[in-house]
């Protein structure tokens, strides 16, 4: 239940400067590439030049002879000495094809960038030289690049051992048997037949992702007595520990994984268990020396970080008054090889389809998904996990309904937004709490739509085309076990150990692994508020499986929902013990609620002369555990686990305005305004920062970034000159506002935020562009959206010559 009133020292909600910053602004951060061990060797991967080819032979003779080269590992060795990546801890409980693969490619390469061999040398320059000397004898095969082609009967196969290229298929609505589903589809079709308005389009979203500034890196060390130690850029070290143990066949207690305290962004890319790490760890064990691999940007853009690529053929039925009735969607996702541990590429489109209905009250839906193997890099999780394409489609479709009805799209949204929670969507997603209309109305008050319409009219009189667009999004606040177990074969609960120190300080140990979200600061604020001490007196350790309790990782906005709640729960357990002993010492009969933890003291509320400094009572319990209450023992450390009864959500709504230059199709975002339900906020500055970053990622995805393969399956965008990220000059300022409702299912009323946030952006942007160009009836149905596309549409509409 929500209860933060008892925190008399209000660190909760304070715009506290981050504890992480001092080391990071003075060059003292310690990222994976900064870690060096004695006798460390450098690894580099030789990757496939072709999208699809048989490996007829690999000649490493010349490379191995180069002075400084220590070893070269190929796929055959990995297949012989390690297990496959298809281990239970890495495999969802969903009926899909899970193609067998190893640390390195064997027999066949399946995408441009597939790892074939790993060079290990004393010097990284020498390792690169050696990579040039490896000769791979390929027999080229025609690449399979288009999902529609890949799914045709008799298509050549990406994976020879599988029956076909259909990796996964699911109907999300209307029953479990084919017959039930068919009957349901007929019912939905009846709604469409009777509907006054039906809109639809094929909504295409390109391959793009969230590309953190720090690439991946692995540093593995082996000891015959202690086993394997791996420093790994990972969001989920505890999962990785089990996976390393299983794939390398090492007893799990002999594996320790440490995610460096400083990680240069992650955004989902560092959530999977990657094959490269297995090869590095195998080499360290084989050679008995530390081996480090720092991924180049080139191989990163080639082989990971690609998400979104999906076509959604969507239809929406509505009344003439703009009431949404039913949605029908046929999604086809281009998953690439489908070979990435934990996610296998298809988990994202799966969840993205679950999230398709968004915040609207549909009577019915007929929603299904097909996922196709192709000879491209496997889709990798990227912030807005899976639902960037479906959100684009649904938000555009709502605007298309509004246009057909002759209504304001904002009014159509308000009319259809779920008025009361909890609510279960037509795909079965549970929305636990919040007030969507409050968030929406807050946005609209600030947006001042009538004023904009007046400005738009006068601008048009001057030959200027400005437009306004809206979007909204229900996002996950953490991922409950209920969803995590089937989806990833892993738990969702949060876990935290809180250890008090005889000097009155606190240590927090967590098994997740942040990458810039400010956990050290936020968690310190929670602990400080709970014990009435100073955030500076608290030390947070994350990411080290040797010392932290099990955590499923920093994914899906689990911080504000699950980790923060577990920390609070652990603190409360210690408060219970402290007050139990203190009441005994003071000779009063009192419960925990009758004590206040404030300004470094624990005070008996009914007689405030009865008090003790926090430091003294903590030291007394840890160091002088005599004359304790009956049944009590000394020591102040506990581990708490938190799991909400049901999945939880957060909600946001966006407005943007744009101006389009009719002559060129060039456009500029003039204003971006949001309204958010983030529950109770621990540090507003950090939450603002999460929103800014997510929204700009969404804009960058929608406008600039695009992974392009040519017709031979060659990856053409494997550097930052061709895979363009938004720069500061490309994007607008962002104005964040809040209309929050405390979450009733977390101890502090907090919600996990920021993960899904980029998804609402592309719809709002394109809605604004279409609004600006409404005299020409232009509908945008494909991303990325760029000036040349708009110009072509204007030309087709006769607006330009």
């Amino acid at each position, binding site marked *: 239940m929500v209860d933060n009133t008892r925190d008399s020292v209000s660190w909760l909600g304070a715009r506290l400067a*981050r504890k992480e910053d001092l080391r*990071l*602004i003075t*060059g*003292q951060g310690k990222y994976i590439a900064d870690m060096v061990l004695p006798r460390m060797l450098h690894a580099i991967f030789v990757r496939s030049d072709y999208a699809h080819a048989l490996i007829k032979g690999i000649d490493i003779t010349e490379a191995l002879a180069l002075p400084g080269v220590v070893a070269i590992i190929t796929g055959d060795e990995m297949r012989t000495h390690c297990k496959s990546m298809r281990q239970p801890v890495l495999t969802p409980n969903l009926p899909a094809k899970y193609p067998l693969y190893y640390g390195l490619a064997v027999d066949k390469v399946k995408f441009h960038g597939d790892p074939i061999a790993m060079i290990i040398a004393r010097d990284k320059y020498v390792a690169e030289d050696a990579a040039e000397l490896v000769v791979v004898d390929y027999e080229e095969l025609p690449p399979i690049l288009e999902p529609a082609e890949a799914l045709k009967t008799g298509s050549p196969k990406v994976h020879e051992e599988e029956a076909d290229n259909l990796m996964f298929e699911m109907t999300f609505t209307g029953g479990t048997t084919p017959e039930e589903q068919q009957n349901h589809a007929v019912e939905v079709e009846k709604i469409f037949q009777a509907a006054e308005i039906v809109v639809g389009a094929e909504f295409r979203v390109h391959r793009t992702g969230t590309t953190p*500034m720090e690439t991946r890196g692995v540093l593995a060390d082996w000891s015959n007595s202690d086993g394997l130690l791996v420093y790994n850029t990972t969001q989920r070290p505890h999962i990785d520990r089990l996976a390393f143990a299983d794939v390398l066949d090492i007893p799990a207690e002999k594996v320790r994984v440490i995610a460096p305290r400083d990680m240069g962004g992650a955004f989902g890319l560092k959530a999977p268990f990657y094959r490269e790490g297995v090869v590095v760890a195998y080499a360290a064990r084989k050679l008995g020396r530390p081996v480090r691999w720092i991924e180049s940007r080139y191989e990163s853009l080639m082989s990971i970080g690609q998400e979104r690529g999906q076509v959604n053929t969507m239809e929406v039925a509505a009344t003439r008054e703009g009431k949404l009735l039913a949605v029908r969607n046929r999604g086809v996702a281009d998953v690439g090889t489908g070979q990435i541990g934990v996610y296998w590429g298809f988990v994202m489109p799966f969840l993205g389809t679950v999230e398709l209905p968004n915040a609207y009250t549909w009577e019915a839906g007929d929603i299904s998904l097909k996922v196709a193997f192709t000879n491209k890099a496997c889709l990798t999780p990227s912030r807005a996990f899976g639902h960037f394409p479906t959100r684009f489609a649904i938000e555009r479709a709502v605007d298309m309904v509004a246009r057909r009805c002759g209504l304001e799209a904002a009014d159509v949204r308000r009319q259809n937004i779920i008025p009361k929670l909890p609510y279960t969507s037509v795909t079965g997603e549970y929305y636990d709490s919040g007030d969507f209309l409050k968030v929406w109305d807050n946005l609209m008050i600030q947006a001042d739509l009538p004023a904009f319409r007046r400005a738009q009219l006068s601008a048009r009189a001057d030959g200027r085309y400005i437009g306004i667009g809206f979007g909204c999004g229900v996002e996950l606040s953490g991922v409950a076990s209920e969803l995590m177990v089937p989806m990833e074969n892993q738990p969702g609960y949060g876990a935290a150990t809180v250890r008090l120190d005889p000097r009155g300080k606190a240590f927090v140990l967590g098994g997740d692994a942040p990458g810039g979200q400010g956990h050290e600061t936020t968690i310190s604020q929670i602990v400080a508020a709970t014990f009435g001490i100073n955030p500076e007196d608290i030390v947070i350790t994350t990411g080290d499986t040797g010392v932290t309790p099990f955590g499923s990782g920093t994914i899906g906005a689990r911080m504000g929902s699950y980790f923060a709640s577990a920390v609070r729960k652990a603190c409360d357990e210690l408060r219970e013990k402290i007050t139990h002993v203190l009441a005994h010492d003071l000779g009063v009969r009192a419960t925990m609620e009758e004590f206040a933890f404030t300004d470094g003291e624990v005070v008996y509320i009914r007689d405030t002369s009865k008090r003790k400094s926090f430091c003294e009572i903590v030291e007394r319990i840890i160091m002088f555990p005599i004359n304790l209450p009956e049944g009590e023992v000394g020591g102040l450390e506990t581990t708490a686990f938190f799991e909400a009864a049901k999945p939880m959500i957060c909600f946001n709504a966006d407005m943007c305005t744009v101006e389009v230059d009719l002559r060129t199709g060039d456009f500029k975002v003039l204003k971006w305004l949001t309204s958010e339900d983030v529950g109770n906020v621990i540090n507003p500055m950090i939450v603002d*920062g999460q929103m*800014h970053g997510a929204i700009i990622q969404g804009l960058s995805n929608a406008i600039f970034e695009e992974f392009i393969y040519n017709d031979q399956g060659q990856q053409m965008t494997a550097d930052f000159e061709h895979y363009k990220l938004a720069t*500061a000059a490309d994007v607008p300022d*962002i104005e964040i506002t809040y209309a929050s409702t405390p979450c009733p299912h977390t101890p502090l009323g907090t919600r996990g935020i920021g993960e899904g946030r980029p998804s609402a952006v592309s719809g709002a942007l394109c809605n604004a562009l279409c609004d600006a160009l409404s005299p020409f009836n232009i509908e945008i149905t494909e991303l990325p959206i760029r000036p040349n596309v708009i110009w072509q549409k204007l030309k087709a509409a006769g607006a330009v010559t």
Partner: protein
Amino acid sequence: MKTIQVTINGELYQETVPIRMLLVDFIRERCGLTGTHVACTYEGVCGACTVQLDGEAIKSCMLLAVQADGHRITTVEGLANGSDLTPLQTAFKAHHGLQCGFCTPGILMNMTEFLEKNPEPTDDEIRYGLIGNLCRCTGYVHIVDAVRAASKVAKQGGQDGG
């Protein structure tokens, strides 16, 4: 191989290096100054490796170590004077101008020089000044806030902006 002399943050390094060694690798691996980062394929796009060469912001992945022979370099480790942060560093902390911090050293080195040349920039000038630095976490909003704040500090204090 060539023996070079480079002064980094006031300290003289005399080292024998392969001709092909990049300056950024020299700074990071030979001198152990790991605050300077690499985020692109040594193509000068990301700006994480930005340092100052004789007071001018440059991308250290675009130079060879031997080209720095006889020159003076400042890295992010050389900005603060002991525990005294520069106004720009202070502003980045106060305005949450960083999240993961990976791009931050390069941005600090670039913007330090930027504010020396343009002590009272407009927001647009700040944004265009940041084109050579990619950031993936912040959406640039708080970075612009921090640079703007540091420019005011510079103006009020009559300092050189960092």
